[in-house]
């Protein structure tokens, strides 16, 4: 169960979005500049709403009324940024391992193998992010978020610069995460087919407002 209700002024742009959804994948669908990344940023705890309320599975992450504001590093939400944001000074391997390192858990070689295999980045482990290709960077960012074992996954156009072949490998994995581990996700994408394949619930954002919410047939 995920519930979001946030208000925020960003310069001339004002965001006022309210939606909630049972677990599973919630797709944020909407034109460029409509506020999707901003909403995700607030769920992640990187942007503070002017007012509002954010909760996952009953636990309140933010509530302006009661003054609750769980800091980002305690929220355990995996965030795949629209712009990758790999740590430039760390090797791909250390980037992937970063979340595990911070949580202090011990290595899960199996999962690492599985993910690097799925994303086809095993051959990049020793490289630094600087000279990675756009798609490689995006895949590593995706792996980094998956490997931190999040309780909620925020995906901001995670497949935008990947080729069809790879998309068709990764999408099913998301479906498995959704169905087997029951990992809730907020999924931002402009690709209708992706959204159709993955989302249980669709939230249409327009100019900072929720224009509509509904099932896949909405698009």
């Amino acid at each position, binding site marked *: 169960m995920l519930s979001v209700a946030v208000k925020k002024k960003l310069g001339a742009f004002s965001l006022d979005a309210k939606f909630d959804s049972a677990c599973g994948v919630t797709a944020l669908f909407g034109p460029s500049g409509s506020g999707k990344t901003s909403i995700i940023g607030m769920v*992640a*705890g*990187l942007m503070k709403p002017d007012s509002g309320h954010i909760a996952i599975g009953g636990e309140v992450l933010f509530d302006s009324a009661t003054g609750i504001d769980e*800091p*980002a*590093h*305690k*929220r*355990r*939400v*995996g*965030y795949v*940024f629209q*712009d990758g*944001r*790999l*740590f*430039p*000074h760390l090797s791909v391997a250390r980037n992937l391992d*970063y*979340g595990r*390192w*911070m*949580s202090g858990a011990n290595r899960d070689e199996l999962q690492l193998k599985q993910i690097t295999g799925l994303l086809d980045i095993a051959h990049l482990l020793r490289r*630094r*992010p*600087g*000279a990675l290709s756009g798609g490689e960077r995006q895949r590593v960012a995706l792996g*980094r978020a998956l490997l*931190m074992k999040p309780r909620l996954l925020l995906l901001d156009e995670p497949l935008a610069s990947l080729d069809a072949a790879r998309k068709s490998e990764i999408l099913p994995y998301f479906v498995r995460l959704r169905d087997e581990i029951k990992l809730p996700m907020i999924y931002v994408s402009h690709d209708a087919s992706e959204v159709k394949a993955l989302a249980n619930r669709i939230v249409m954002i327009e100019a900072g407002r929720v224009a509509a919410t509904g099932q896949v047939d909405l698009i």
Partner: protein
Amino acid sequence: MFELSAEEWTAVALSLRVAAVSTAVALPFGIAIAWVLARKEFPGKAFLNAVIYLPLVLPPVVTGYLLLLAFGRKGFFGETLASIGVVFSFRWTGAALACGVMAFPLMVGAIRLSIEAVDRKFEDAAATLGANRMWIFLTVTLPLTLPGIIAGAVLAFARALGEFGATITFVSNIPGETQTISAAIYTLTQVPGGDSKALNLVIVAILISLVALVASEWFGRRAGARVHGV
């Protein structure tokens, strides 16, 4: 032909120790202050800034005299610190203190510059991956600030080699205890016919700094590359 007296060699050794220790000890403080100045807004920030720049703005002699008044045996801090066994007055530790104080603004300036250049979005990413403020600083901010830290350390080290006005005023010019290369050079320039001897020491000073610079260039290049992800 090139020759140094035993006393001059001691001065060289002492200078190295003083410069190294003062830089090493000042560094953590420098990083902390630089971070505060780069990231925090608070009343009296301008004042803190001014205090740090003071040793740069005032003639070294004055700084040295103020140190003498504050950290001398009878000085306010001097007495308190002495009671816990930390003595500066007329010890090499005092020379190190003087050098550290004189070099501090340079160090802070460089490090602050690098911290301000760090792109916060990486720190945000670290936060979502579960790093608290302290870990973010240690694993992201600090490594990305390395170029500034190296540059700051070199500036401080070089400054410490050249410092003498504050040192000689604070802890005098006692061979083997507080007489650094610079103090020795100065003394030699104060007497007829000392210049040639002074030149020898000048050459030594240059050689030392040359080594320090080459080393820093090397580390600096690697640190810079890492910051840009290669």
